[in-house]
């Protein structure tokens, strides 16, 4: 009997492996601390990272606050109970403390990122993308650091920034997402381990895409990364994050915080291709993705643009938002969210208009297949002083099959009569006519769905940097494999 079961498992693995090709585990020496969460754990994390005192204080304040909080229940999600004391809050691949060259990087680690299609080789200048690679709790390697440093750009892991630029972190950390913000952001504020830090000085246009690649490897660990990006006056940066995780039967928690600060005339473009392990076809396993992302257009004429392609995770809960404080500032949110099998997503944005003549644009494309549940939740708020604010929202839902669901929860609060808020929403199904038309030209049903879905999502995919748009297109197609017929 046991033999049969394991054979069944093998077949199942093969089938699911095809769908999620990043499901492997790297066999590497990992330093773990004991599971559970208390002040000692927080002190250990902070000590391991040799953090300045203000950082430990921040963490402890957040933790004390978190203990008074309850998990929010307002989302359109079914979230199984999470036992926070069963999670390991720090895991780090063991390696030499300081790397002088890439050759010193653990070959197993290097090959992991190669398998994921991420080149950590400084020589690979052709790709023109600087990468910060984060595995489990720590940043493994940041490429192109010296090239960027010549322009005064700081791009490094969060831990490193704490050592080398503590003043910048002290000045900006928690200014957009305070440690009291929400349950998951507060948890992150107390236990975050690493992430990326980026500072673009005045008048500098960052010449290459900056990218962070997040990888969960160790079992039973949570990943809590923290990203902070500051674009000083008249600067520009385009930043991309990608993420994957091994396939495991247990759910794993990922609770990140991203803060963006755009000063006068600065522009930040932030793109995400989220492909955490979504769980198997029966909804077993997968990442719980509870993320708080928010940017502030602090100075006049500044701009923040969020683009996200969300295909992974068992549960996604995230609302990348913009606080439009500067006059004439612009906020954008472009999103494609796919839920297949038993995946659930509750995602959207908040656009808070404070400055005069501020503009925001929301384009959300939900795609539901299998038993997937997909919700758009968005707030457009025009405050009293926001003269002549403009918002346009377009929320479309595409359904494949009749067992999935799409939901839209738009909220509007307009306190200034000069504001104009527009909202358009559509729900459609992929037509059998469209699929047959493709079939008749020699295109299989799976490929037809890929074509149609990519066409539907094109407005969002067009916002991605070229290199990633192609990847994202493939990902959309793979995520929906087996969803029809």
């Amino acid at each position, binding site marked *: 009997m046991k033999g049969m079961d394991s054979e069944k498992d093998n077949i199942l693995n093969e089938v699911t492996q095809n769908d999620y090709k990043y499901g492997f585990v790297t066999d590497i020496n990992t330093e773990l601390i004991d599971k559970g969460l208390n002040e000692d754990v927080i002190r250990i994390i902070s000590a391991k990272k040799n953090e300045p005192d203000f950082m430990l204080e921040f963490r402890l304040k957040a933790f004390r606050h978190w203990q008074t909080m309850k998990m929010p229940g307002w989302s359109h999600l079914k979230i199984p109970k999470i036992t926070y004391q069963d999670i390991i809050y720090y895991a780090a691949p063991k390696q030499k403390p300081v790397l002088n060259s890439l050759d010193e990087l653990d070959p197993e680690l290097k090959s992991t990122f190669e398998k994921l299609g991420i080149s950590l080789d400084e020589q690979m200048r052709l790709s023109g993308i600087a990468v910060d690679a984060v595995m489990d709790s720590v940043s493994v390697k940041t490429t192109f650091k010296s090239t960027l440093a010549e322009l005064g750009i700081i791009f490094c892991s969060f831990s490193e920034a704490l050592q080398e630029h503590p003043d910048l972190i002290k000045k900006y950390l928690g200014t957009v997402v305070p440690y009291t913000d929400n349950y998951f952001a507060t948890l992150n504020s107390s236990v975050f381990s690493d992430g990326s830090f980026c500072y673009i000085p005045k008048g500098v246009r960052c010449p290459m895409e900056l990218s962070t690649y997040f990888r969960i490897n160790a079992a039973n660990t949570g990943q809590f990364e923290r990203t902070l990006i500051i674009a000083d006056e008249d600067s520009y940066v385009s930043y991309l994050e990608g993420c994957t995780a091994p396939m495991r039967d247990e759910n794993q928690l990922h609770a990140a915080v991203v803060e963006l600060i755009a000063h006068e005339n600065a522009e930040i473009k932030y793109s995400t291709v989220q492909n955490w392990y979504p769980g198997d076809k029966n909804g077993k396993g997968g990442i719980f993705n509870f993320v708080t992302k928010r940017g502030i257009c602090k100075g006049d004429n500044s701009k923040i643009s969020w683009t996200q392609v969300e295909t992974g995770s068992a549960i996604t809960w995230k609302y990348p938002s913009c606080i439009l404080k500067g006059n004439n500032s612009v906020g954008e949110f472009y999103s494609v969210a796919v839920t297949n099998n038993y995946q659930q997503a509750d995602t959207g944005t908040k656009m808070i208009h404070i400055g005069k003549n501020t503009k925001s644009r929301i384009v959300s494309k939900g795609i539901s297949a299998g038993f997937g549940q997909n919700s758009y939740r968005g707030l457009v708020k025009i405050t009293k002083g926001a003269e002549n604010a403009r918002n346009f929202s377009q929320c479309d839902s595409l359904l494949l099959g009749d067992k999935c669901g799409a939901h839209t929860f738009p909220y509007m609060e307009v306190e200034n009569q000069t504001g104009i808020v527009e909202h358009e929403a559509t729900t459609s199904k992929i037509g059998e006519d*469209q699929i*047959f038309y493709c079939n*008749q030209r*020699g295109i299989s049903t799976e490929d037809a769905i890929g074509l149609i879905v*990519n066409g539907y999502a094109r407005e969002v995919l067009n916002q991605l940097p070229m290199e990633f748009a192609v990847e994202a297109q493939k990902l959309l197609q793979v995520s929906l494999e087996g969803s029809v017929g």
Partner: protein
Amino acid sequence: MLSIKNLKATVNNKEILRGINLKVEAGEVHAIMGPNGSGKSTLASVLAGRDVFQISSGEVLFNGKNLLDMSPEDRSREGLFLSFQYPVEIPGVSMVNFIRTAVNEHRKYKGLKPLAGSDFLKMMREKQELVEIASKLTNRSVNEGFSGGEKKKNEIFQMAMLEPKLAILDETDSGLDIDALRIVANGVTKLRNKDNAIVLITHYQRLLDYIVPDFVHVLYNGKIVKTAGKELAMELEEKGYDWIKNEIEK
């Protein structure tokens, strides 16, 4: 090339095709005419593999292979092309991307490598000229916002790109003005050769002035009730279908 024997098909338990027999050889042009509701478009859909129809009996051989056993995409790859009466719109999917996917799927089926980008664009330009379809149409999403005439021209352009052995044109002439009709008909004529065959489904004689058929069949009540040469089309144009109905019901 195509041999249909006693083909019967139903939709929602209603019999639409009641025993079709038809043989089409390479190099031939066949016209299928008949009053509304006689089963002309159903025949086209059944041959292309639309699954809303149930085949209750019969056999269809296409180049010696059992057509009814094949998936719709394999029928296409084997060289069967259907020009749709009502081509659907696929928003956001560029015509270039769509037809390149189709062409490369056909090549893969034949064991050929995908066409290089420049070769593909060259092929597209040539075929565009051949069927007189403006290049701005191929830069847009598949059929999106196309006029009726543009949609039909686009069907013939796709036919030119895929070079089918058998093309079934389902009322390709309907809704076209005289100029568009001429362009579409000229395109089809240029694509015609001794190795391929064309089946025209039409209500009117006027298309047949441009594309002269070798055979004209009258489909009535799910059966081919009369077959003759091109002169039959003229006769139908003159007298309508009533005389045929009377002849059968006698």
